[in-house]
């Protein structure tokens, strides 16, 4: 977990330094704010990983001498086939068309989005099928 944290914190630190130099030199707000936000976006997960890396045992993928047998067991649940991403995507499609062709497209759009959120959540509770 340490190297993952180092990548993000390292990038964030560089963005922070670059932001400081840029702000002091140019006094331009737009770019400085975006670079500052970029720094925060790296520090947010990076510091979380760093915090965890000091509190957890090294995972098998962090151990250079780990054997495949050490990784035996369930590594997670993966959903089977699901129609809900398609439904949600089509809902988002109609919502965007509402931006162009008129507000009434929101009716099928939000309808599909709501249906997909409901269906996808219920499926998640059941664990999906293969």
């Amino acid at each position, binding site marked *: 977990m340490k190297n993952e944290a180092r990548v993000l914190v390292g990038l964030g630190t560089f963005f922070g330094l670059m932001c400081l130099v840029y702000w002091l030199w*140019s006094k331009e707000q737009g770019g400085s704010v975006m670079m500052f936000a970029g720094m925060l976006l790296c520090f947010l997960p990076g510091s979380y990983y760093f915090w965890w890396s000091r509190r957890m045992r090294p995972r098998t*993928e*962090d151990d250079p001498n780990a054997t495949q047998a050490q990784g035996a067991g369930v590594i997670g649940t993966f959903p089977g086939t699901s129609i809900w991403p*398609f439904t949600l995507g089509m809902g988002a499609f109609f919502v965007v068309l509402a931006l162009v062709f008129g507000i009434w497209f929101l009716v099928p759009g939000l309808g599909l989005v709501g249906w997909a959120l409901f269906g996808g959540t219920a499926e998640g509770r059941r664990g999906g099928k293969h």
Partner: protein
Amino acid sequence: MTDVLDPPLAAAPHEPDHGHEEHHGPTGILKWMTSTDHKVIGMSYTITSVIMLMIGGIFAEIIRAQLTTPNNSLVSLAQYNELFTMHGSVMIYLFMGPFAFGALANIIVPIQIGAPDMAFPRLNALSYWLYLTGSITMLSGFFVAGGAANFGWVAYAPLSNSINSPGAGADLWIGGLLLTGFSAIFTGVNLTATIFYLRAPGMTMFRMPIFTWNLLITAILILLAFPVLTAGLIMLYCDRHFGTHIFSVAGGGVPVLWQNIFWFWGHPEVYILALPVFGMVTEIIAVFSRKPVFGYKGMVFATLTIGALSLGVWAHHMFTTGVVLLPFFSIMSLLIAVPTGIKMFNWIGTMWRGEVWFSTAMLMAVGFLFTFLVGGITGIYLASPPLDFFTHDTYFVVAHFHSVVMALVLGAMGALYYWGPKITGYLLNERIGKIQFWLLFLGTQVFTFPMYILGLRGMPRRIAIYPLHPGWKYLNDVASVGALMIGLSMVAFLVNIAYSWKKYPAGDNPWDGHTLEWFTTSPPPHHNFYRLPQIRSERPTWDYNHPGHQASAHGHLAEALIEKDSVS
């Protein structure tokens, strides 16, 4: 015999759930619509993005046909504006981006790190649907009154406001980008989580293949850059429809703010397109030189440095606006040449004294090196403000970024030849592949070099007609011949797919590959692996197939030379 085989191969953790029996699921269109398998989604991405390449290519051919003659009337001025806008938009937003981080990344990254799937398979499927609907939204602009978006792929304010660009086409362009933008963000989340959390035991960060490393940095850049574009697009939409004045001077807004926002996304986007292809080329060159990657850690740190610098270079696209800090952006842009140069050096170092096998994939990768060097070096010229003032918005810039993106197309084609057998189980024909390579490679040079000269002779970009200027017409003709050759190379690619259809079974490891994807079957089974080798270097499959040759895992030149001598 070494500890690679001792203890013997352990079963992958997920295997007991499924055993060796085939995975049963829906087939045909229902499989396309409901699958959450990263390989199926990646294949959908690949096919869709290659179709987008063909559509964008047809636009390019029409543009080049229009420019063969001064004052040509093949297309009207308005149609020309739509064509170059949609050519750029389709190629950048709908082909190269999704191809780079959605198509091959989706298929290969989980297999390279020994994962059964992406971390969030349903989110992955949603990414694809947003990409597909976004593409349809953007392209449907051609079928509405007023035509497609016509303000260039960069949509500069105030040209993109509701007075200068009325009509549904521009709104469809914005809507399409909102959808594909969210698609990219979700893919970025998915790739980062997959690479951080689903690696196989022993696959430490510094044993990940370079392709996976590059996709990790790409995913982080996506998360940094794409939300900025999405926010900018929402502001642009509000300016167009809700009467805000964020980008209009009349209401107290700042038009240059759009350029700042757009390029704050736009320049990292260049690396979002390029880094995955760098990764593809690294894998191809290492495998076909029969050597480990030269300077593995140098490659990783070069990628990290490119990622770090990419957030501080955006305004080199805006030197001529007169309101940006020239020295800062010039220095940062020139600095990017250092890590890129390290990569170039390492690619050549990987080939140096290797047993280079010039298969089609390797030819494409070497073609990438040459073309990218041309694009990269002209990029260094353009990072210098005095030269940029002279060449801004001329064909010199057009030639520069076409060298870069055509290099990426070469690398991407190489990756299709390299990983295609893994994905489909069948090889492509090498003879037709080599014909395709030479058409694509030579076509690219014939296409871009006249445009460099045209730019230096002052021809501005985005003009449909030009006066009968001495020395412009024949250069345009040569460039059009080059574009035709590139078009023919794409025809050769399609012919190759049709000709080689299920003709040459590939086997599991046709190229003596290095990384985990060559350890599993072609195509890989549901959840990818029946078994995994011990991972003790960044090329576990090679270690497994060549026990006793792991000493050069990190590619020191001397060790690599010793290894070469002992192999041959």
